[in-house]
């Protein structure tokens, strides 16, 4: 069974008051996070933490070597779901907003290093544009054993039409879908303009001189613990390529 953590930020009044962002509050954050949490726990998975609003801190995902405390939170669970506002930097780093400066108001993926000696296999970010499709390599540093980053390369919509996304992703996971498929299918209703993307790293056999062996990739082989195969961690020294899989239309 998997250990998972959830962070959801619905209210951004402190960030607005501090002049950090003009982003409005979200409405259906907890419809999604509660749905995700409830389905996973219902299937016997263990919730390690579920932080909300100002209890979500940028240090929770920042690497311990860089002054963060990921080994206690994000890097201490197999699967992590976060919902907040986001975007990316010009160099391809993901960037996400918090509602309390602990110690920064935003997280930058250049400071993440997930999977190391710790646990993180999968990160799911229901947040706009955290992946730059023209510079996916900007995320490479986060894969220190992490298997897949699930995010968006365009907007992710906060709407009553997307309020079941968390439940749908979790439902797919506990019914044996691959992690990548669970994300793409779960956040898509084929009407709302959500643009999911999943990113992973692969070894030299997967790169195969540029003739990619997609069948060997985490995208094809990783399932949630207890619901199918999970590939072993791939340390940075063995990483030969970065792979991404996205929906457009």
């Amino acid at each position, binding site marked *: 069974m998997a250990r998972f953590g959830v962070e959801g930020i*619905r209210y951004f009044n402190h960030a607005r008051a501090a*002049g950090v*962002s*003009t*982003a*409005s*509050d979200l*409405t*259906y954050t*907890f*419809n999604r*996070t*509660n749905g995700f*949490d409830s389905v996973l726990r219902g299937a016997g998975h263990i919730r390690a933490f*579920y932080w*909300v*609003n100002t*209890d979500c*801190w940028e240090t929770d995902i920042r690497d311990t070597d860089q002054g963060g405390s990921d080994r206690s939170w994000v890097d201490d669970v197999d699967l992590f779901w976060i919902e907040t*506002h*986001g*975007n990316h930097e010009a160099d391809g780093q993901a960037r996400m907003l918090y509602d309390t400066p602990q110690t920064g108001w*935003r997280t930058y993926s250049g400071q993440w290093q997930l999977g190391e000696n710790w646990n993180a296999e999968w990160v799911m970010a229901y947040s706009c544009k955290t992946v730059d499709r023209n510079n*996916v*390599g900007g995320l490479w540093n986060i894969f220190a054993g992490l298997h897949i980053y699930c995010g968006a390369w365009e*907007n992710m*919509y*906060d*709407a*009553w*039409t997307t309020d*079941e996304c968390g*439940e749908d992703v979790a439902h797919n996971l506990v*019914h044996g*879908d691959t992690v990548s498929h669970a994300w793409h299918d779960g956040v898509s*209703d*084929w*009407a*709302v*303009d*959500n643009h999911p993307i999943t990113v992973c790293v692969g070894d030299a056999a997967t*790169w195969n001189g*540029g*003739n*990619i062996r*997609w*069948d060997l*990739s985490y*995208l*094809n082989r990783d399932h949630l613990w207890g619901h199918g195969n999970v590939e072993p961690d791939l340390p940075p020294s063995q*990483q*030969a*390529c*970065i*792979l*991404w*899989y*996205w929906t*457009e*239309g």
Partner: protein
Amino acid sequence: MDTEKLMEALVSIRQELPDEINILELRRSSVDDQQRRLRKLLESSGDACERNFDRGQWQTRDDYTVVNLPQGARAELFHASGAVKLTSGRSDMESFFKEPEPKQQLIKRAETMLKTLGIHEQLGRGETLAFERMWQIKACAADRSGKASEPVLCRAVGAFRHQVEGIPVLGPASVAVQLAGNGEFDMVSILIRNPAGETLDRVKTVHPERAARNLVQQLAAQFGNSKGDIQFDCPDGMRFGYLSLPKRKAQRLLAPVYMATIDVTHEKERQGLVLVVQATEKSYLPLNPPGHESPPSISSKTAGRRCCC
């Protein structure tokens, strides 16, 4: 907020709007009825992908039924709406398209599959399905030096819109047909809420300008206290149609709404919203429900730290 520009974008509707519209009662079907329909779909889709879906392991839960089928295929039925999803069980990263295909060709393939699956048989009198959008799922890779592979087309998803008396039923795609390479069947999802045949009411529709004003007011309420430059875009304008709620929600009737997809650009963040406003004087559906709050059982992180210091 540039209200004038946004209003202009919102009212640029590309549909003909009726002056009056019927409020339609929806057909209610028992779980048994829904399961019978699912068996029929399994038959036709089994033929389509040359699999035997007659034998499956059926499990009925409170709110959904799941059927585990041979070779990893799976069907799901959501009792609140009768929505169905059937996946082939094919590995995600195999059976790609050999090369990119023109959109028209993909649309044709999706329409053919729709016919093969016999989904039109689920439609009643005055109901149609119209192609709406072609989604493509692609994959790419790069090595350490930044050398990238050619993108491959993994799956194509044709989305179709249910129409009742020519009026689209907005919400999630009514039917989505996912195809693997060579147009082979990979997944279908269906959320069609059929009218029962009874008209509950016939009412005048609200003028689009008034609906657009209501939407702008919703936005002003949400962003009113934000200081700074915020850009609102609504490239497709408002859409008019009946509304189908998501699949886990029961619904008694079809009533018209205006719907708009709004993209919001802040200095550092981006936001996407889908707003809905009723297109009638009287309210028939619970629109824009307030979101859930976090579970009350969650303790504060700082309280936890205090306790452990």
